[in-house]
C-alpha cells in the first residue's frame, strides 16, 4: 500500500481527481470462462481515455466468488502503476465482503466502494454503523461510502440513508470519499456536501449535476459509472468537461455540457429505466455502449437483463448525435472484440 490508514484521507485528496470509470467482466464466447485478454483490453482502454481509476464491477452478472476474485486480479495486474482499481463490496455476506477486501489489498487495489451485503438486514442505524466500521477496520484500503436506495434503509430516515449517519461514518480513519447513490434528490446532495464535504471527498456521479456540484461544492472527482460512452480515446470530452469545471472555465465547460446533451437525453433512458428503478443495472447494455466506443464488448453471463434491438438502436443514435461513429459489425459485440480479432464468430446454428 502506498499509504497508511492515517494517511488515507490525505492520499485520496491528492489522487482522487477526475473521473472513475467502470470495467465490466468479459467472457469466452460460450460464457464458460473469464476472457482475460478482453478484460485487459478494457483496462487499457480506460487508461487511454484518461480516467484516474476504474471500478471492477464484480457484482454485475453471474460469477462465482472465485471468478469475481480472479476478474479483480486480472484488472489490477493490467492496471498496475497506470490507473487505480477499486472494488465494489456488493457481496452475499459480510464475511465475503471482508474476504474480498483482503483479496483486493493483496492484488493491488487502492480503494473499495462500500456496499452492504445482500443478507444484511439491520435493525437500527447503529447496526449499520457497526458493520461499516467492522468492514473498514478489516482493511488497509481506502474506502468510499455509498449511500444508495438499493439498501432499503428508508425505514430509518426519509432520505433513504440518514446524512447524519453518513457524517459519523466519514470520521472513520480510512473512509476517504463518498459516492452519492441517491442521485435524484438534490436535497440529499446538498446535505452530503454540507455535513461531510469538509471531511471526505463527496462525489455526485451524474454529470448533469456537475455545473452545480463542482463550482458550488468543490467536487473534485466523480464516479464510478460508465462515462466512456461520451467519448473516445482521442477525444475524451467528458473528462475535459469535468476538468474545465474544476478549473473554473465555466463557459467552455458549459459549451461541452450542451454539446453532449443530445446523447445524455437518450442515454438517460438507460439509467432511469425500470431495471434501474428496481435497483439493477443493465449490464449487457452498458457492455454494448462500451463496445460501440472501443471497449471489448461481449455479452455477460446470466442473471443479467436482456439486450434488445431498440436499445441498441437508441445507443447508436445517442453516439451519432454527438459526432461519434458507432463501432461495427454487431456480430463482433456478441463474442467480444478481442475474440473476434482471433477469428471467433457467433455460431449461426445456435
Amino acid at each position, binding site marked *: 500500500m502506498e499509504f497508511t490508514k492515517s494517511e488515507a484521507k490525505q492520499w485520496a485528496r491528492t489522487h482522487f481527481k477526475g473521473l472513475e470509470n467502470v470495467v465490466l467482466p468479459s467472457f469466452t464466447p460460450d460464457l464458460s470462462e473469464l476472457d482475460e485478454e478482453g478484460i485487459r483490453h478494457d483496462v487499457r482502454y480506460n487508461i487511454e481515455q484518461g480516467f484516474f481509476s476504474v471500478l471492477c464491477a464484480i457484482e454485475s452478472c453471474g460469477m462465482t466468488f472465485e471468478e469475481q476474485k480472479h476478474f479483480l486480479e486480472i484488472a489490477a495486474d493490467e492496471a498496475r502503476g497506470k490507473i487505480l482499481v477499486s472494488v465494489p463490496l456488493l457481496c452475499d455476506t459480510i464475511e465475503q465482503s471482508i474476504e474480498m477486501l483482503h483479496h483486493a489489498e493483496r492484488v493491488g487495489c487502492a480503494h473499495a466502494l462500500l456496499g452492504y451485503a445482500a443478507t444484511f438486514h439491520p435493525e437500527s442505524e447503529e447496526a449499520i454503523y457497526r458493520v461499516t466500521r467492522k468492514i473498514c477496520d478489516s482493511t488497509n484500503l481506502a474506502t468510499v461510502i455509498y449511500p444508495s436506495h438499493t439498501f432499503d434503509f428508508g425505514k430509518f*430516515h*426519509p*432520505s433513504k440513508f440518514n446524512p447524519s449517519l453518513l457524517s459519523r461514518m466519514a470520521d472513520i480513519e480510512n473512509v476517504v470519499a463518498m459516492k452519492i447513490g441517491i442521485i435524484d*434528490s*438534490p*436535497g440529499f*446532495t*446538498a*446535505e452530503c456536501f*454540507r455535513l461531510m464535504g469538509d471531511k471526505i471527498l463527496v462525489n455526485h456521479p451524474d454529470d*448533469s*449535476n*456537475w*455545473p*452545480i456540484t463542482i*463550482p*458550488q461544492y468543490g467536487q473534485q472527482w466523480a464516479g464510478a459509472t460508465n462515462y466512456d460512452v461520451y467519448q473516445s480515446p482521442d477525444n475524451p470530452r467528458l473528462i475535459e468537461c469535468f476538468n474545465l469545471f474544476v478549473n473554473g472555465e*465555466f463557459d467552455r465547460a*458549459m459549451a461541452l*455540457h*450542451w*454539446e453532449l*446533451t*443530445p446523447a*445524455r437525453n437518450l442515454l438517460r433512458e438507460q439509467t432511469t429505466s425500470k431495471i434501474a428503478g428496481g435497483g439493477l443495472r443493465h449490464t449487457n447494455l452498458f457492455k454494448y455502449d462500451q463496445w460501440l466506443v472501443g471497449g471489448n464488448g461481449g455479452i455477460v453471463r446470466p442473471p443479467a437483463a436482456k439486450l434488445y434491438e431498440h436499445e441498441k438502436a437508441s445507443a447508436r443514435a445517442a453516439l451519432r448525435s454527438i459526432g461519434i461513429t458507432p463501432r461495427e459489425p454487431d456480430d463482433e459485440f456478441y463474442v467480444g472484440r478481442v475474440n473476434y480479432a482471433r477469428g471467433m464468430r457467433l455460431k449461426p446454428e445456435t
Partner: protein
Amino acid sequence: MEIKKSEWKDWARKNMKGLAGCILPSFTPDLSELDEAGIRWDVQQHIKHGFFSVLAESLCCGMTTEERKRFVEIACDEAGDRISVMVNIFYNSLEESIEMLRHAEKAGCYTAMLAYPINFYPRSEEDVYQATKMMCDSANLGIVLYPSHKYNFARFHPSAFNPRLLSRMADIENAVAMKVGILSPAGYTAECFRLVGHKVLVNCPEEGMWSITVPKYGQQWAGPSNYVMCQTPDNPRLVEHFNLLVNGDIDRAMDIFWALAPIQSARAAALNATLAGGLYHFTLWKYWQWLVGCNGGLLRQPIMPLYEHHKEGIKAALKAVGITPREPEEEFYVGRVNYSKGARLKVQSGQAV
C-alpha cells in the same frame, strides 16, 4: 398602476420574497358558470398560508376568454393589497396573449408569467426574442420569464431554451424575474443563475432544489406552484422551510424538508406522469387543494379524470405528515362554499346540482 416600467425590477426585488401559490377556477355545481365565492375563498386561503403571491391559473380547463378575464378580476378584487396576483400568459395567439396582458394590468395584477402562444412556431431565436419583447412592451406589468421544454425550442439549443437568449430577454425593462421550467438536468438551473441571476430574480420552483439554490445562488422567491398541498394555514411548513433556508437556518430547514418527504414522494408519483407530456393533472390539484382547506369543486372539460387510487394515495401521504384530510368527499364535488350553502350531488343522475 402606479409603478413605472423603469421601477419594476426594483419593485420585484423588494416584493417578490417567499412562495407563490396557485389557484384554479371554481364553478357552480352544474359547471355552467364561475363560482365567485369559491374563487374568493381560495384567494383567502392562500393569504392565510403565507404566500406572497398567487397565480390565477385560467388555462387549466375549458373556459371562454371572457370567463378567464372575469376569473382574474375576481381574484384581484379579493386579493386587494394582501397578496399580489399573477397571470399565466399561455394562450392561442400572440394577439390573445396581449389582450390578456392588458386585461391583467387593468384588473390589478402585478405580474405575468410569459409562455409562448400555441400557434407560435418561430424560425429563429430572434423571432422568440421579438415576440417576448412585444408582449413585455404591451402592458405595464412585471414580467416573469418562463423557459420551458413545452415550446419545443430545443431545435435552437440543446438545453431546450438557450440561456443566452434568456439573458438578452432579462435586459427588457419590465422583465423582473424568471421561473426555471426546465428542471432537469440541473445544469440548466446553474446556467440561469450564472447568466441571468444578476439581472432578474431567478427561481427554481422545485422544492427539492432549494437546499442548493437558496444558500448557493441566493434564490429569494419560488413558484408559482401547488405548494399549498404540503401544508395547512395553521402550519405552513413549506413556506417556513423556504424562509428558514433564506435566513440561513439550514438545520431547521432540513428537518422540515425530511418531515415532508412522504408528501413529496406522493406528489411526484401522482403528478410527474403527465408532466413530460407537457400537461398538469389539474383535477388532482383541485382535489388535493380541497383536502387541505381550499374550495375544491370539479373543473370543466377538457380535464384529466380523477380516480380513487389517486385520492387514496394522496390522503395516505397527508396523514403520514400529520395533516387530516378534509371530509366528506361529496363536498369536493360541489365545492366547499356551495356545499355549505346546501348544494349536493344529484344522486339520480350522478350530476351535481
